[in-house]
């Protein structure tokens, strides 16, 4: 290792293989009584099964069906989200941004990977990638094109760089062909990507 003796980076003392690195840290912390392995399993299971884009989709579908809810969601979302149980770590200060024919919203964190966990779960790899962090603010239309989204000239793009603890969720436009669907059916139209602004609502496959 090039900096084995670098005191400011003790991590270089751990095994280089990341899987072994986790294991070593976990072992030391467990032996000290500072980590409960069952708690690690509970955290993983929560984000694998319980907290994910299905939460955000419920909020979007509800906003599409209920104008009063939509208005309150845009004006002051936290009481509504708390009522729905979608509150917690990385979602303490939510702002919902609404797409219109004139304005399309896109969310990024150029400095790390800030993301509304209680509504969308753990971010996908592309959201955390250097390429997205570097490019989304500067060339959002090229970035969107790589996800198959092309916006007309009449639509401006507003990119939200989450540089503080405010977290953003995009409220997409409701597709006209969903006019007859109820809230439950609408949830299937709302993908994770469209709540980041990197997709548009589509019919479920």
């Amino acid at each position, binding site marked *: 290792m090039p900096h084995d003796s670098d005191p400011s*980076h*003790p991590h270089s003392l751990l095994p280089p293989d990341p899987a072994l690195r986790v294991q070593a*840290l976990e072992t030391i*912390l467990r032996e000290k009584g500072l980590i409960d392995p069952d708690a690690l399993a509970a955290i993983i299971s929560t984000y694998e099964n319980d907290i994910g884009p299905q939460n955000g989709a419920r909020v979007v579908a509800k906003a599409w069906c209920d104008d009063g809810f939509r208005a309150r969601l845009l004006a002051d979302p936290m009481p509504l989200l708390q009522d729905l*149980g979608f509150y917690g770590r990385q979602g303490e200060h939510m702002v919902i941004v609404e797409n219109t024919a004139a304005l399309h919203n896109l969310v990024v964190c150029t*400095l790390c990977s800030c993301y509304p966990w209680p509504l969308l779960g753990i971010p996908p790899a592309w959201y955390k990638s250097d390429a997205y962090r570097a490019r989304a603010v500067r060339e959002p239309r090229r970035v969107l094109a790589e996800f198959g989204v092309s916006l007309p000239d009449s639509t401006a*793009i*507003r990119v939200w760089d989450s540089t503080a603890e*405010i977290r953003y969720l995009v409220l997409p436009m409701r597709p006209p062909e969903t006019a007859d669907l109820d809230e439950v059916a609408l949830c299937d139209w709302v993908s994770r990507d469209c709540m980041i602004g990197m997709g548009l609502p589509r019919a479920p496959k």
Partner: protein
Amino acid sequence: MRLGQSGLHDRHGPAAGAKMSRLHDMGGRIGDGPLHPETADAPVFAKDWHARALALTLASGALGQWSLDRSRHQRECLSPQDYMRFSYYEKWLSGLADILVATGVLTTDELKAGRSLSSAPDLTQRCLKSERVQKALSSGGPTLRDSQTVAQFEVGDRVIVRRFGHNSLVAGGHSRLPRYARGAEGQVLNYHGAHIFPDSNAHGLGEAPEPLYSVVFLRSALWSGAEHPDDEVVLDIWQPYLQPASLAKSRTS
């Protein structure tokens, strides 16, 4: 700083010799390749150790020995070589190992040995037990604070981001102002109240809440070659980084 020195001497942030490289501040960088979309049924964690790294980081954070700001800064203090070659969760993991040592929870001897060499009786009471996980995740950590600091700007005000947007409290210290916004003129879009100021909090200097604004910039005010004349970028910016546009103009005219 010597190997094995405890975190008690670590008042000014991670390892006195380490400064953040700013490589993490990559907004607007040129040369990165295409994005790779993920299908909706892709696993939340691509590898088991990714999940372990995330869970271990959250559970260690529950020991209460550092703030979120501090842990972000620790990752930013990875050497430039490590920052660029490490994958996402390797950065988390290395930052975690470094912060555990910097705060005195673990020693470098323990990292070398791969086992515990001493007990930590004071901290074991803070160990996050599985029955407390749901409550810990769902209670979050709001950053809104009461503050005596007067909000200087109103929604609609024109503002200029200070040209030298680095941390003015700690040389080479943590900052959440992307460099691409430095010196740019924008407009206050939202006011969020006073929030914990990371420049201070990341270094154990107190929460020092400051008024926080969403400021909107024309994309064309940040870089040349805009794809569309009306495209915009919004950043959340704390008051110390902002000055009134009119004042800045009268100074330069």
